[in-house]
């Protein structure tokens, strides 16, 4: 688990986007398991995102027209995983994030914490190798923020998934093993 900290505009999010394959770096090379992501086709990157890399965002970014359950199920649907298998995974993960009783709710009916829990569930459902989290607690009060950090620590770390956490918060970085700092686009390890 690694935290990246730095002032606004230092390039934290851009780095995350590049890592997630959503954005392309202007120069340099980026390797995922020995493969150069700069050389990968869009469909290969999409494949990576489907199975290997997941993201958690400051503003949650749940799909507003889908219920909690559907939001979590969505990445599995993209992978065309059979329905019964999906159901099981979704049910178990719902339980893990404690959202089972809210599974029929739409995102706008949820509190910030609930939304982020759903987002974490959505990130975990594909069992990725890496989770990129961009200020996951930035939009939450401290109590909910604490809750989310706990959840991340418990679920992500427990499953041995790499977590790259971009944050302003000392508290958040505290859960990580390593903290890098960024300034003006440069990573200070």
């Amino acid at each position: 688990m690694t935290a990246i900290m730095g002032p606004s505009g230092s390039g934290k999010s851009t780095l995350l986007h590049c890592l997630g394959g959503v954005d392309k770096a202007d120069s340099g090379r980026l390797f995922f398991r020995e493969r150069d992501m700069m050389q990968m086709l869009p469909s290969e990157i999409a494949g990576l995102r489907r199975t290997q890399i997941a993201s958690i965002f400051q503003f949650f970014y749940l799909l507003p027209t889908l219920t909690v359950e559907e939001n979590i199920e969505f990445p599995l649907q993209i992978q065309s995983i059979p329905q019964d298998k999906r159901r099981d995974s979704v049910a178990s993960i719902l339980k893990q994030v404690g959202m089972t009783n809210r599974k029929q709710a739409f995102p706008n009916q949820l509190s910030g914490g609930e939304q982020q829990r759903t987002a974490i569930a959505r990130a975990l459902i594909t069992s990725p190798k890496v989770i990129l989290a961009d200020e996951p607690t930035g939009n939450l009060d401290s109590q909910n923020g604490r809750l989310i950090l706990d959840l991340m620590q418990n679920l992500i770390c427990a499953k041995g998934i790499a977590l790259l956490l971009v944050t302003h918060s000392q508290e958040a970085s505290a859960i990580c093993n390593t903290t890098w700092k960024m300034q003006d686009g440069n990573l200070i390890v």
Partner: protein
Amino acid sequence: MRHWTRHPLSTLAFCSIIAVGVAAFFSIRLANRAAISGFTYFDRTLGLRPDLVLTCPSGQFSEEDLYSIQNQLDSIPCVMAPVLETTATDAAQKGDSLNLHQFLVVGLDTFAMSNLIYYDPDSSNESAYHAWKESSHHSQGETGEASYGVVVSQALANKRNLKTGDQMEVIIDDRNTILSILHVSRDEVFKVSHPSTILFMNIVDLQRAMQQTGLSHRVELYFPPGRDKSILMDKAQGNLENNQRWTVDTPQTSLNSNASVTRAFRLNLTILSMLALVVGMYLIMQGMDAAIVRGRMEIATLRSLGITPGAVKTAWLLESLWYGLLGSGGGLILGWAGAQGAVRLVASTVNALYLQSASESADWNHSEAVLALSLGCMASLAAGWFPARESAETQPAEIFKQGRQGGFMTALNKPLLGAGIAIMGWVAAYMPPYPDEHGWIPLGGYTAAFLWVLAATLIAPAGLRWMAPLLQPLTGYHAVFMYAFSQLRRPTGRHLLSVAALTVAVGMAGGMTFMIHSFETTMIHWISQSLNADLYVASQGFGSASSQNRMSKATWQSISNHTDIKRADVGQIFPIDYQGRKTFLTSMPVSNPLDWEYALWIQKPSSSPSASSNTNMPVAVVNESFQSRFDVKIDDLIKIPTPKGYKTVRIAGVFAEYGNEQGTVAVDRNLVSDWFQDERAVNIAVYLNPGADPEEVRNEILSRQTGISIRTNRVLREEVLEIFHQTFSVTHVLQWIAIAVAIAGLTMAMITSLVERQLEFQVMKNLGMTRFGMAMATGMEGLACAWTGFIFGTILSACLGWLLVVVINKQAFGWTLQSAIPWKDHVSLLVILSLFVLASTIPVGWWVSTKRMHKEE
């Protein structure tokens, strides 16, 4: 206000939507106007404007009438010019097609008209001058065939490469006639051009060519200029009125009475043409809303700077008005151009069904332009009203919030109100028609149509929500469906609007198709019942209600004497005025209607004519249109105007006939010929002896007779249907415009909606959705909207179709039609709609998915 400079594309899109709507409306109005003005006053192309026009209820003036008109005018100075009109077929185009090129030949009393030069010596119309000057030019050609002088238009001269002195061959009645060109008229800029189909002749020449001495169709009176002109006109009107033989009209009233013939047709067209504008209104609303969404930050800033909500609203309304003006202006230009094309379509329809109209160009008309312009601006303002109000009323804080579900447009989502309105419409449909001087106006029917359209726009959006559970099973199948159909659960206002627009477009288009299909089915039934003869003989080029070519007695007698012919029914038709309205007198092949075996009876004549006291009185049968227009019933006595005075006949039965909506009264042919002193036949229905081959007989007769065309039963049926389809060509164009506008609206809704949802796309991308998947999702979403619109549109179309067939047609035209549902057409509409929606929305999805995420910090 600066929106349009910063978003030229969407500005262009709005303006073009308004432009298309205004253009459709304006062009149809202009084309209608032109087609109507094309009636009767063809001499207006020579710059002649009569002050009074005399017409005859029997349709024909005799020379005695002309003498008595002169007597009654007594000492009142005026130029009195009888006019004769007929049609001539272009002999250059041989063949049996009904779509032969037809000319309208106008016979003018060139001598009388020469006196008009004194009325305006300085600017006497050059072509009128030539028309009289060079007019009568009747001479024997080397071949012994008669040749007559004729004045043709520049347009025709250019088309055929004709010049003064050249000859052209036409068929008048059943005779080949050589016309030699005396003069080519020159069109003046900004005046109605001389249509290529109009030929001018001296009236005496035309009478000779028609072998109808002394015949004229109307008499025009021109009063001299001066202070006392109006006094003279009033005096003349006073002297001439109260005469049974003729009616006195000003050109305007006379034009109106001609126009009234096609009133129902034109009313329908006008209503149809507004369809595009109505559908467009939804789109403008949508577009305005999108603009407001985009301008939100700006509004919020303005509001926080202390600008009042009222000022914000005014600003948005001004912007709507600006779009309205810009779009309508473009629409006028587009519409004017479109009218030039539409006028031919409308005119060809009118020709086929009603009177001869020779319009080829549509005049710019200021009042129509102002009407179209204000409609466009009003539509734009009305469309901008709700979004503007919303923008003004929303609190700045709320505005900053991203995304929103519905907004004002959810106001559309009122199924209960819609149901209430629908019921009101249903009540309206049963209101009796409103009578005016020319017939019945199905006001209730139109009201019902309007209410139902309104109801559909209120109910259909709710349908989007109802669609969601229906599609639910599909969502589990793939993420594409999951995302696409989830949109329907919480549709945005834009979705609602585009569904409403689609519903209206599909409903109206489908309703028309329903009507046309029912009409066609009925026609086919009627044809199979009434067209039973083996061969149909007509003068070449005769094929529409407006054609006036006739066969001489010699011709039809020689045909009927053919050895293979068992029986030949000679048909005659004369336009007459009954109770001040135009209708037709036709001949019945038998004297006792009971013997008329091929009639399709609505009310069969009683088999015991002796029951009636008037056994000596001639009997007549009327068609359904006549019955409903003039409110007559069996055993009523009606007085028919004829050149021999009024003749009283008893109505014995009512038959089905869909040839015209003005009504037909049929009387024994021998009587008709006698009354009109005219033995010429419009057509002959020939029944062959058993065993005779129709084709052989046809070829045999054609080898002997010229100037006629003979159709076998099968060919005639095909041609009747061909003309029928041609009749609805304008309707089809309008339908497609409405559908196209609706699809454009849906596409636009998708664009704005997706731009708003860019983040969601980004998220899906993050979750590993491919671009293709996202594009497909967009397509599916569009398709779901289209299908919802289609389903509700289908319901609406069934209602409107029923309304058109059972209420409006019956009331306006007096036709009973069998309802027939055009399944095939409807399914193909669905397929086309789906394909177009997919074709337009998938690229939109692809485009949005390729956009990079904007900064979200």
